[in-house]
């Protein structure tokens, strides 16, 4: 289970303090008559993994490009690592790492040469750069590939190199733009292990994604649709926002007795019997099912079958989208 130490704090925390690594106010980007990002107010706390979830074309990349100082906002402000992106983009850039959607390194340079080039652009001395690079290469398990030409690496290895490059100057904040697009699920898991490892080392991670499983890994999520921030919260909070919770259906020796037992439990939102099945609504199915079963077993009730239908982020996403269209 992911710990979310800052979530509660943030909810009641609207004034900027040192805890916010990203703070935007009415951040807007217009391209001629298209509004790509529309008055976005966003706070990201130091140390969290924040996910920006949205379909293609929702403005995620534009958002990140503005936050990285690559693109000047048309309106509003954005403070990143304590600097205004419009007036101090150099300071912002020096403190952030950015892993673009596609491989953006020199294919005719080796792994080491690429990293060394960028490390030294960030001002690292030759020796420091070497130490730092060997550390990062170990982290992303590329240390054996140091002298290989980048162009000769496979897609997954290139992606690791891109991550290494984004980390070469030890940034406080790491932007990942669709980091695992086109990567197979096992490797995606490997990447998320890296991200969490980095996060434990104190790096704030900001990730753009349209994969629900990826979004579920984040501490907090913002849902971006057509340039507007529809909702922000932990994955659980967002799930609750659309559905009251997950549905758990039980077939057991005595449905009525089971209902009587469970009704008193605080994690059960509602309980009713139907056709011999006990239908429960819980906040979170994953954590509730074992508790349900042990409670029933304590009361000598035997569970024969369990059906769980979790509210997925996809449901949240679709739910928000349809409610948005309805309004």
């Amino acid at each position: 289970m992911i710990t979310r130490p800052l979530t509660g704090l943030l909810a009641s925390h609207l004034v900027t303090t040192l805890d916010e690594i990203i703070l935007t106010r009415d951040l807007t980007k217009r391209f001629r008559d298209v509004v790509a990002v529309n008055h976005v107010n966003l706070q990201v706390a130091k140390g969290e993994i924040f996910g920006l979830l949205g379909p293609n074309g929702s403005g995620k990349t534009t958002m990140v490009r503005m936050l990285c100082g690559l693109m000047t906002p048309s309106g509003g402000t954005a403070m990143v690592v304590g600097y205004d992106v419009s007036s101090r983009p150099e300071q912002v850039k020096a403190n952030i790492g950015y892993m673009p959607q596609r491989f953006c390194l020199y294919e005719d340079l080796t792994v080491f040469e690429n990293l060394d080039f960028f490390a030294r652009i960030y001002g690292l001395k030759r020796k420091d750069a070497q130490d730092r690079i060997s550390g990062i290469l170990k982290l992303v398990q590329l240390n054996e590939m140091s002298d290989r030409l980048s162009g000769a690496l496979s897609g997954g290895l290139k992606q690791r190199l891109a991550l290494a490059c984004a980390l070469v100057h030890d940034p406080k904040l790491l932007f990942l733009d669709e980091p695992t697009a086109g990567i197979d699920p096992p490797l995606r898991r490997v990447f998320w292990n890296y991200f969490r490892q980095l996060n434990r080392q104190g790096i704030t991670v900001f990730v753009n994604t349209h994969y629900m499983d990826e979004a579920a890994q984040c501490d907090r999520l913002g849902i971006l649709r057509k340039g507007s921030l529809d909702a922000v919260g932990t994955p659980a909070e967002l799930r609750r926002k659309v559905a009251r919770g997950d549905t758990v259906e039980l077939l057991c020796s005595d449905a009525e007795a089971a209902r009587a037992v469970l009704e008193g439990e605080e994690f059960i939102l509602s309980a009713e019997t139907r056709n011999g099945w006990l239908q429960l609504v819980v906040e979170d199915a994953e954590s509730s099912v074992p508790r349900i079963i042990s409670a029933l077993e304590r009361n000598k009730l035997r569970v024969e079958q369990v059906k769980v239908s979790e509210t997925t982020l996809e449901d949240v996403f679709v739910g928000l989208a349809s409610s948005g269209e309805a309004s």
Partner: protein
Amino acid sequence: MRLSRFLLVVAKEFRQISRNKRVLMISLMMPVFVMALVGYAFSGDIKHVAIAIVDEDMTPTSMSFTRRLETVDTFHVTHTTLDRHQAENLIRDGKVKAAVVLPDGFENALSAGRAEIFLLVDGSDPIVAGMTGPTLDATARAFSPGIRISITSLVMYNPELHYLSFLAPSIVGLVIQFLPTFLTAISLAGERERGTIEQLAVSPIRGFEILFGKMTSYTIIGMVEAALALLVAVGLFGLQIRGNIVVVAFFLLIFTIASVSIGTLSSVFAKNQIQALQQVIPIIYVSIFLSGVFYPLESMPDSLRPISYIIPMTYMNHALRALIIKGASLEVVLQDFFALGIYSFTVMALAVLLFKKKLE
């Protein structure tokens, strides 16, 4: 702009160029190849050049010399006359390319051990004109071993006989008009095409540092290429550089910077390398064919002449020819210097401005 970062870009460019075998081959082989090709193509065997013989001596020796000339493969004696004036008319009318004059007293002078003959040449065809003198000289040597027959040449219409001398300076100009433009355009367009500019843009490096790093790298390469072309011309084809080499290098430098800037400009308007090339190639063709690289400007139709004077290459050709062949002083090329200076500065300023704008 930080010097160390700028140098990093320079070092990186050289490393990448050394990796890219194709670009490396083009960069190093093209100056050698073009110069060698042109040099060999224009100094091959030429046969049956129509000539006239003006036999003012009318002695057995002069007639014998005439017969000897008739056996030479290079020449084809089409006219024999007694009158120099008529020979000049023949040349003027394009009936013959040259006329050999055996003056009155040729036989006597030869038996006295020292004779002289005259050669009138149509210089407007420098390839042919350049060959007649040496061929005549060889024939004369073979005719009278041990006795020197001096040949006095009079070049009509075009005093610059040596076509390679005429061509070589402009080929050097051509090399730096073409290659640095091409290399800069594909290198910058490549950074965009492959997205590497994105990774650079998110780093603290400034647009200027990238641009000047690139421009410096390709200017150095352009200068090396110009030097290679000159070396081939001097070493293989005996071109003599009569002017001050520092002044020549200075002109080459201005022009290379301009080419690199044109390459940069082209990349600003291109989405990828192919587009960049498509934009560069027409510019280069126009430069080559309307600036008098292969033929003197005088040979161009009057209607096209004004265009020539807005093409920088025209000034480059003039300056390099004047400096290299005639050893001209600075005053002679001052106009070229100003024209090229203004051009170079303008395109560089434009390149820097537009590149910066594009990056944002």
